[in-house]
């Protein structure tokens, strides 16, 4: 097929250089694409769409009574990253997760970082995701965030930035695996021989991570996945992960605390549970400890957790480290705990809780992106340059009323990847969410979820806002091969 009319825009295009030639990482793929007969790509895209429907690969959108189940939108053209660049991303992510774990552990125990004056106490105490109930808790293996999904973006200048850390219940990994599967099914001869780093062992790694962090002294631990149920937007993912790991998918009503342990109700009576990969937010996991009106949780679960008789992944209270105001301090956090410079830079961030920075934000609302510190899914964001005066006024009022709740960042220009739009390849903006597992090893999935904004010019990639997805290829070229697993002990020695 002809690719000639493809025009990358102002942004950095991942596949093509500004002169119209493919970048080195995309050369082989583009070559293969050109050998496809006219219309073949479109045909395959249709096949893929149909498979997605038949396989029931869906997500739910809140607030729509009928047809809440939407088929996952997938685009056949992959995002390709070469191994050399990925090495840098990998070590950056490892560094970040390691430091954040130490940070959360410190906050709920000694608070050294606060005592040493590196982060304001007020900022931590005012964080909505701080859980005083976790004070003094020591999770098995010292791991607080077992599973992390880090959002990365590439700006116009080609630099990769961390946009946000998702330390609570990051979702999307099932779609990464399904996208790859679908890619292999529908695009096999393009995929073949491309030396793409495999990601298929993720469920195995996840299970290992969970079992590695079982309560001390349990020899043959039982792990489960805890879901809020079929109306949750990520329900598909919960079933997928439970199935792939071969563990039970439970709802709160399937669990009960008796004699100091957590049990699940089976056809043969109660059976003990040691590790819970919970996909329910802190607030809902235990009505006796957090929100009393929660119908999704398990009474007294937190007592068992604090007594060290069950492991929750991620540990309750972890969310304090993905507060977007705390995010601004991650470079300092890395320096404080590891004595290193940050490898993957943060997006420059203005904290509205700081008077000087707040005034700067209020004076430049038309140039900045303003975000609430504790929302996810793209809700509540003001895109300054695309906003109306009325929207900016409303936002300014909200900032003045509650400055701690807001941060602002410069408007970045997300990179683009060619995407099939109405039978033609068009540049569409993407981000990337790789997944990192932390148990006895730190595992960085080679690749991740590439989300794509399907509307022309749009930079909103969330699936709840109409975004799509792509397969992400990390190439194993030359001497640079991704190293997904590194034992934490070895890594700590190396960095000591």
């Amino acid at each position, binding site marked *: 097929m002809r690719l000639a009319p493809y025009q990358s825009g102002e942004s950095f295009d991942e596949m093509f250089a500004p002169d119209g030639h493919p970048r080195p990482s995309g050369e082989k793929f583009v070559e293969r694409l050109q050998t496809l007969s006219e219309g073949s790509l479109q045909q395959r895209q249709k096949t893929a769409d149909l498979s997605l429907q038949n396989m*029931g690969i869906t997500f739910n959108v809140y607030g729509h009574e009928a047809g809440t189940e939407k088929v996952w939108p997938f685009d056949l053209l992959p995002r390709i990253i070469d191994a050399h660049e990925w090495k840098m991303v990998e070590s950056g992510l490892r560094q970040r997760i390691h430091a954040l774990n130490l940070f959360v552990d410190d906050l709920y125990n000694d608070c050294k970082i606060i005592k040493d004056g590196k982060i304001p106490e007020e900022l931590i105490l005012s964080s909505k995701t701080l859980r005083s109930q976790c004070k003094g808790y020591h999770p098995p293996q010292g791991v607080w965030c077992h599973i992390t999904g880090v959002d990365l973006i590439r700006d116009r200048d080609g630099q990769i930035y961390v946009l946000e850390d998702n330390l609570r219940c990051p979702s999307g990994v099932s779609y990464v695996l399904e996208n790859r599967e679908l890619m292999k099914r529908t695009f096999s001869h393009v995929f073949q021989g491309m030396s793409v780093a495999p990601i298929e062992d993720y469920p195995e790694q996840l299970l290992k991570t969970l079992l590695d962090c079982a309560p001390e002294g349990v020899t043959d631990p039982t792990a489960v996945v805890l879901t809020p149920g079929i109306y949750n937007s990520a329900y598909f993912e919960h079933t997928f992960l439970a*199935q792939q790991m071969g563990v039970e998918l439970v*709802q709160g*009503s*399937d669990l009960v605390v008796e004699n100091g342990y957590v049990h699940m109700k089976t*056809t043969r009576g109660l059976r003990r549970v040691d590790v819970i990969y919970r996909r329910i937010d802190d607030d809902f996991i235990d009505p006796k400890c957090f929100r009393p009106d929660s119908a999704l949780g398990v009474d007294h679960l937190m007592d068992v957790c604090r007594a060290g008789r069950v492991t929750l992944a991620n540990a309750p209270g972890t969310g304090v480290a993905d507060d977007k105001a705390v995010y601004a301090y991650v470079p300092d956090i890395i320096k404080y705990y590891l004595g290193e410079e940050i490898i993957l830079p943060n997006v420059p961030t203005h904290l509205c809780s700081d008077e000087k920075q707040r005034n700067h934000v209020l004076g430049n609302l038309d140039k900045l992106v303003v975000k609430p510190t504790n929302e996810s899914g793209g809700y509540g964001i003001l895109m300054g340059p695309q906003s109306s005066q009325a929207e900016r006024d409303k936002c300014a009022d909200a900032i003045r009323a509650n400055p701690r709740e807001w941060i602002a960042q410069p408007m970045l220009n997300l990179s683009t990847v060619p995407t099939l739009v109405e039978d033609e390849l068009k540049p569409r903006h993407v981000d990337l969410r790789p997944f990192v597992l932390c148990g006895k090893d730190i595992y960085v999935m080679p690749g991740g979820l590439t989300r794509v904004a399907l509307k022309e010019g749009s930079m909103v990639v969330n699936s709840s806002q109409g975004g799509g997805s792509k397969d992400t290829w990390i190439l194993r070229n030359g001497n640079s091969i991704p190293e997904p697993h590194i034992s934490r002990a070895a890594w700590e020695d190396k960095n000591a």
Partner: protein
Amino acid sequence: MLSRVASSVYWLSRYVERAENVARFIDVNYNLTLGETDTLGNQWAPLIFTTGDQAIYEERYESFTRENVLKFLLFDEKNPNSILSCASFARENARTIREIIPSVVWEQLNQFFFMVRSAASLDATLDQPQEFCERVRLASHMLVGATDATMSHGEAWHFSRVGRMIERADKTSRIVDVQYYILLPDAHDVGSALDVVRWSALLQSASALAMYRRQYGKILPDHVADFLILDSRFPRSMHFCLAKAQQSLRSITGSTAGTFSNLTEQRIGLLCSNMDYTSVENIIQQGLHQYIDGFQKQLNLVGEAIQDDFFTSKQSPQTQTQTRQTASQTQTS
């Protein structure tokens, strides 16, 4: 396995089997009514009586016309036992336990649901329901086949078989009961030529004609009843279904033959041994309809015992999901 999951597997296969049997009901009635004179040609009401949904039907429709009855049985969302409702409940149950179902089974079920839903919006389906009914039967067979061929024959599989067998036993009993309304409106008709046509249609609706022929050759009402009620090798006979359900329950509990460890096993054991030692002569003597009525009542008691022995958690349902599910399930028994 989790009680909630066991319950979902069980109901999933009951709903699929139920959809298949509604399709069979419609098919047999079509076979019977096509080419008949007006009196017999308008026998659509018995279909509603035999499925046991008369009350809901009468709330919604004024008369038993062919179109109304078909609409009600095929696509009425307010009828919890319509094919569309069954397909949708089956999928909903499957969605809550997707992690334990082989992906090929889930995909089949998913396609089944989409097929039914898209057919529901077509006038042609009401006009010519046979082809649609055929597709529903095939989809059910595919699901049973895929489940048997890809799912470990462990506890979940056994619960799924119990569900399917109990549903099938119930529906075969209702198919046989159709004759109470249609085939023997008058005792004088027994043995007439017309009778053979109707009895073969009955057999056909249970996909039993060829197997019956090999067993008995000529069509005689007593033999047909014997075959559909008591045959121990024909997979849609009431006796066969009950024996398999009992076998699966034993695999689940580990009880040996001749013993019981809970109410479910006691009730199904009593029912099975009665079938083991009765004869079609006994049945006809006490009255076919009376016998089937008694059978259905006891089968319902078995279903209730299964609910209590295996599925009921000590706490009351807490989530929206559970309440919804329970509601859709209790409407059935």
